């Protein structure tokens, strides 16, 4: 159901400090840049500097396949995150969305191991967490009720 997207892009040594700075100022968690890219379960950038020439590793678990995801990323990442790609060698600054997507896709690799396997969409998971929270709040608010009253309250909250 989910897709794993992994790509590696080269970075020149001279741009490393600036790239570190760009990565370092990105907000984390729900304020993170990938919150604005629909279908993202998980995404991260990792700077690889000890394995030879520096590389920027991007890996993600997504609801859609690689190409539409990469295109969505090009379209939806906020400017402060787009800057990260601009540090990569050969990034087509002035190109169209399609050309930038193709540039990213050309650097994709097929991963054999994945950080997390998720058999549900982001929407399903968010709905599941919300249901869990509602159920927990209901249980806490209605503890101690007799079974009939509890059932009535449950139906009132969650429907028949």
């Amino acid at each position, binding site marked *: 159901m989910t897709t794993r997207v992994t790509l590696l892009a080269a970075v020149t040594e001279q741009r490393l400090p600036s790239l570190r700075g760009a990565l370092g100022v990105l907000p984390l968690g729900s304020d993170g840049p990938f919150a604005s890219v629909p279908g993202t379960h998980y995404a991260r950038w990792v700077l690889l500097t000890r394995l030879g020439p520096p590389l920027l590793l991007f890996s993600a678990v997504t609801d859609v396949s690689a190409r539409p995801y990469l295109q969505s990323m090009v379209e939806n990442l906020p400017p402060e995150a787009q800057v990260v790609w601009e540090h990569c060698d050969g990034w087509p600054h002035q190109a169209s969305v399609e050309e930038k997507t193709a540039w990213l896709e050309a650097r994709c690799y097929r991963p054999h191991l994945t950080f997390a396997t998720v058999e549900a969409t982001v929407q399903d998971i968010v709905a599941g967490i919300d249901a869990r929270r509602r159920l927990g*709040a209901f249980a*806490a608010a209605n503890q101690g009720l007799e079974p009939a009253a509890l059932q009535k309250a449950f139906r009132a909250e969650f429907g028949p």
Partner: protein
Amino acid sequence: MTLWRRRAAIPALHHVQGNVLRPFGYTRGAHLFMHVPDARAGRAWLHQVVGTVTDAVDWPGAKPVAARNVSLTYAGLEALGVDPRVRAALPEAFRAGMAGRAAVLGDDGPCAPERWDAGLGTGAAHVLVSLFADDAPTVEREVDDVRSSASRWGLDVVVDQRTAQLLGAREHFGFSDGFSQPTISGVPSMPGADGVPDRFGRLRPLPLGEFVHGYPDIDSDDPPALPPPFHRNGTFQVWRKLAQDVDAFNAYTARHGDVLGLPAATVAAKMIGRWQDGTPLSLFPSSPGGEEVARDADRTNTFCYGDDPRGERCPLGAHVRRANPRDGLPFGGVMTARHRMIRRGMPYTDGDDRGLVFVAFVADIERQFEFVQQHWCNDGDAFGLGDEPDPIVGRNARLTSQHGKTTLGGAPPRFLSPLAEFVTTRGGEYLLLPSIDALWALADGRSLWRCRSGR
């Protein structure tokens, strides 16, 4: 997993500072954080003080009247002129300091570093001298001695925090404290210490390198070393001042006890995971184990959670179960083993301001202290509790939300909701507690490279 196959290492006790591997056992303390005006003065002062630092060698007879530790913040290493290459090679969490890691620890709102006590989390605290004794006059004499030497070299005391054991070694909420210290391979075990359960339920000691640098740890016989002169026989010290709102805690347990039809003491015990006398809910789920059991440190600490997977005896989210889940997580005790801490905290009482000076010694701040606070106390996912925080020291958005709750277990389960904040972070620092010879190296201003061949 090769956890249990690590060869036992023998610590060089005359190089390790005291109180780390075995507690000093004093009932009073003073923690003096000082600011170093310049490297030369700082090293001169340190040169004068190192000889008074207590090592870890067993005391042959009666214990001395007082004992001392010296540790340094990252800003302190900088102030003492430690080589930038050495400083850069130290772990990120230590370099950032506790205030810099506030987002990781959940220290926001009333716990935010901007609200901490003066002198903490600002970069002004460079050196910590911790003094211990059994009576107030001796502590005062020790403090005067340290203040006098500091003054001579121009060091300013920016924090002076006193601590004292309460009657019965309890903390301010009334609970016996200090249980569940890890047993360490190669170190004589203390009564009431526990190891980590293996897959057969036996408690096994932890490798020395989990707490002292330069020895085999859980992951490796030869773990990555800190740069010299800190590569061996030192440890990291987590120092955290936690204010406790005792009145609010008592009112909360009484109010919710009324709602649930439980005595306030039972509600409090379910939040903590032990009764006030220290006997664990896992062994005594209905009422305290009694004085005789409470006095037996081994009996109060020899238990597991693996046979209580639904939290029917001890709630899954109880404070002590979160802080040390024993075999309560998948794969037996393996997942717990990487996150143990040596704790040496002591209560403080400054008039109406009461709380705990939490002190922990760990080889890896991020993997041990921060992991426990972030993943086990501030979140409940590891225990199947969603985002429920620890009811005592947990911090997340749910804590103050009207839907925040703690699950007490039972059939049907009972809950405490909403939650309340009883514990507030009033400040803290990450410190490096170097070996005695590393302290000498710092005092001498010895270069990085001359220390490389150190012991």
